[in-house]
């Protein structure tokens, strides 16, 4: 890690009073790069935890009520190593909570957003470095609260990550609905506060701190993805925070936002006040549907940058790409009802939400066509980051198209809450975002640490992950077509589903293979910190600004004032002397006229 601050003496950014102590440099750092790496390491650790939780779920679905090998006896000595149904509800609740709130959202915005935004726009740091530091440290109360919720006796929170009342509000409704649920809600609130601090910072930085010449339409698409995501978070998060507090008040203070008058669950005290369970669903999805795009727009941006770089060709349709990111974000605010088609919401509303939901597939399709247009006619270099980015496109096609089934209200009647939806969001979030994140790690690792990750190991990691991911998730479509419901600890006592166990076993073994494959990645990541091939500023031959800074950049990022002359995608430009044409390179005296389209 010592190499990170190699150039730190170049800038006197910090006041001399806090000069270079270990604590202020690495722990409570206000340097966006250290904060980004802190987010990266934390989220990767949680990624592993979330993966193990998924294996618990998969084990139960493949071998219900049997002893879990190796860890079963340690975790549940009382049940002889079996997963109990109570623990199963905690497992899937925590798997989703960890993956969404501790991995995907913070790894995109927290890790890559922090690391890349100042570097890619040519700034020396974020607009509000202290706020930035706090946005990381506010994750820690969340880590502890969710961890405490998991280990609360007798069982952790088990209301699903959606936390629907009354199950989540009435203490007596489930073993995990007592204090574990309160801890869970408070944990989510801290994640929200952290994200809010980040989003304010990202918006301000991108608007205010761009280098000379860096117009909005010269920003890399990664930055556009981060920018729009920050706006989404700023507008959607307050609703979740408020709703979370309403639920906490229902639980602790006896208010009645979400419980109908007189409701009694398991001998609980009758609820007072005429609340509505559906109100929570509206508020929750008003945040959590935009959150779906928060979880993919930055990934789309990063993939666009990587694909253009390794196709050695300008991104196809830069402005349509920007408009479609914005279109997805705008429509993202008026589609939340598609989670509620069969919830008891007025069915007439279902029709309007169906139309808006269908329309959101349009900008997604435009993006896919533009990625295909980008590789068309290029000179493709099959590096590890490129392979992961191409797999993002391939998997996003599947995840995007399967969304249309759920958007069609009559079809949704049958496949709602089945494995079809589980397949859909895993294709988008794992096949899409997680693959993009892997690609981004391989891509920006040399910038972060000054050393390359091993390409051969990277390709093995890609190949096995790609195979196992499809083995695990593609089959879920088929289960969904049978109507196989999600969140059931033992679906096989239903006549309709009892013959599906062999397919579930196949999926479980693919999932085990997928988690095991990540050991290759962990080994590559850690060993390359010490033994990776040292690199210069621009190992991949890319145009955007971060590749002009030293690897790793010192405090203050650039050892010169970057001035931007063109967009980030001018690969193959007739004036370029190399296979790339950096944004900082001044044009020749007689530049070639290049048509815009």
């Amino acid at each position: 890690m010592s190499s990170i601050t190699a150039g730190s003496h170049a800038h006197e950014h910090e006041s001399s009073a806090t000069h270079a102590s270990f604590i202020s440099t690495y722990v409570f750092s206000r340097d966006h790069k250290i904060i980004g790496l802190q987010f990266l390491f934390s989220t990767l650790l949680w990624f592993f935890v979330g993966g193990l939780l998924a294996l618990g779920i998969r084990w139960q679905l493949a071998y219900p009520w049997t002893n879990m090998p190796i860890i079963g006896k340690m975790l549940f000595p009382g049940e002889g190593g079996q997963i109990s149904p109570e623990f199963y509800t905690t497992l899937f609740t925590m798997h989703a909570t960890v993956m969404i709130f501790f991995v995907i959202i913070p790894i995109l915005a927290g890790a890559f957003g922090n690391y890349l935004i100042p570097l890619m726009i040519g700034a020396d740091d974020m607009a509000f470095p202290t706020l930035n530091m706090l946005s990381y440290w506010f994750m820690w109360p969340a880590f502890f609260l969710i961890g405490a919720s998991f280990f609360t006796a007798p069982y952790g929170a088990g209301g699903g990550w959606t936390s629907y009342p009354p199950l989540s509000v009435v203490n007596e409704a489930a073993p995990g609905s007592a204090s574990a649920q309160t801890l869970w809600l408070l944990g989510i609130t801290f994640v929200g506060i952290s994200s809010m601090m980040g989003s304010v910072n990202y918006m301000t930085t991108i608007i205010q701190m761009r280098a000379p010449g860096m117009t909005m339409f010269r920003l890399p698409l990664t930055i556009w993805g981060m920018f729009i995501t920050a706006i989404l978070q700023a507008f959607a998060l307050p609703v979740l925070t408020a709703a979370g507090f309403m639920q906490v008040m229902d639980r602790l203070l006896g208010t009645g936002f979400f419980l109908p008058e007189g409701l009694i669950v398991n001998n609980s005290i009758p609820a007072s006040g005429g609340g509505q369970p559906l109100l929570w669903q509206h508020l929750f999805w008003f945040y959590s549907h935009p959150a779906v795009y928060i979880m993919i727009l930055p990934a789309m941006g990063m993939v666009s940058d990587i694909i253009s770089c390794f196709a050695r060709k300008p991104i196809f349709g830069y402005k349509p790409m920007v408009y479609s990111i914005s279109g997805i974000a705008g429509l993202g605010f008026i589609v939340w009802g598609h989670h509620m088609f069969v919830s008891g919401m007025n069915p007439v509303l279902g029709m309007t939400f169906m139309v808006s939901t269908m329309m959101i597939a349009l900008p997604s399709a435009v993006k896919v066509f533009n990625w295909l247009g980008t590789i068309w006619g290029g000179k493709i270099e099959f590096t590890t980051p490129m392979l992961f980015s191409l797999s993002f496109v391939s998997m996003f096609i599947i995840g995007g198209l399967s969304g249309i089934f759920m958007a069609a209200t009559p079809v949704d009647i049958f496949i709602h809450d089945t494995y079809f939806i589980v397949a859909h969001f895993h294709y988008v979030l794992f096949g899409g975002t997680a693959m993009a994140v892997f690609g981004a790690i391989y891509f920006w690792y040399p910038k972060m640490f000054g050393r390359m990750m091993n390409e051969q190991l990277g390709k093995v990691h890609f190949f096995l992950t790609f195979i196992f991911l499809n083995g695990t998730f593609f089959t879920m479509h088929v289960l969904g077509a049978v109507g196989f419901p999600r969140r059931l600890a033992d679906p096989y006592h239903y006549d309709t589903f009892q013959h599906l166990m062999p397919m579930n076993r196949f999926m479980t073994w693919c999932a085990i293979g997928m988690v095991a494959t990540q050991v290759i990645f962990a080994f590559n990541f850690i060993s390359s910190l010490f033994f990776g091939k040292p690199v210069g500023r621009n190992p991949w031959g890319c145009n955007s600004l971060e590749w002009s800074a030293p690897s790793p950049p010192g405090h203050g990022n650039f050892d010169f004032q970057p001035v931007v002359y063109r967009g980030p995608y001018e690969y193959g430009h007739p004036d370029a002397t190399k296979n790339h044409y950096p944004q900082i390179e001044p044009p020749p005296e007689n530049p070639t006229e290049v048509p815009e389209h």
Partner: protein
Amino acid sequence: MGRFWSLLFLAVPVLGVGVFAAAMMTDSWPLHNHWLPRDVSEKGYVIDNLFNTILYLTGVIFVGTSLALFWFLWKYDGEKNLGPVRFLHGSHTLEVVWSIIPAATLLFIAIYQMNAWADAKIDRPGTRLAGADGRMNTEDDLVEFQLPIAQVTGRQFEWRIRYAGRDGVVGTSDDVHTVNDLHLPVDEEVVLQIKSDDVLHSFFLPNCRLKQDVVPGMKQMVWFKPKEVGSFDIVCAELCGWGHYKMKGRMTIQSRKDFDQWLTDQERIQQESSFALSEEE
């Protein structure tokens, strides 16, 4: 290696279509019955047809885009393609074309769903009567809704079923009660009132393509017309607590005669057991 990676991406549409094709041949090995379960309601086929329509439409796009991805990777492999790259920033015409065609297709898909959705969730069965103007199909028509044959109440973790007794009205003293055992007459439109006693549940009949969340504080109606006799699953499809997985009911569809007989038997059993109880007291 570019060839190898291109072929890996070609495997996605090939295997993807293969798995779906194998699953759709429900009668044969290896994916026996791994597709839409047997449909026993009169309107279930509408949902199945819509599912298949979307499947074919998206299937064509999936195969087309995936093959394009494969072909571009194969053809423009940097090791093989030694000429200059095609330096261009996009094409306005193409962007317009590939915006308008998907937009029209998606809008078509959405509008194509509306009637089925209205049938399933909005147009509750009933008899239409002419209003004050004495003519049918005018704005002042009255609709006399069909009464529910039974009330199904979800609670942790069972389905409580209450049949209207001889008076035909649910909620009176002559109701017939069962647990997890729903009997319905075949070939008749049935309306069920569903409600919840505690938390959210979801009343899911996979074989009738029917699903409706049950929300405490609301009284909801579902309707369908069974067309085959037999015994089928009632599944709870909304997380309702630790015992969610075992909240299983059975739906028996039988002829009107058998159904009436069964209901009379239940009524008798209920009366006998209540007599027995009062004698013990």
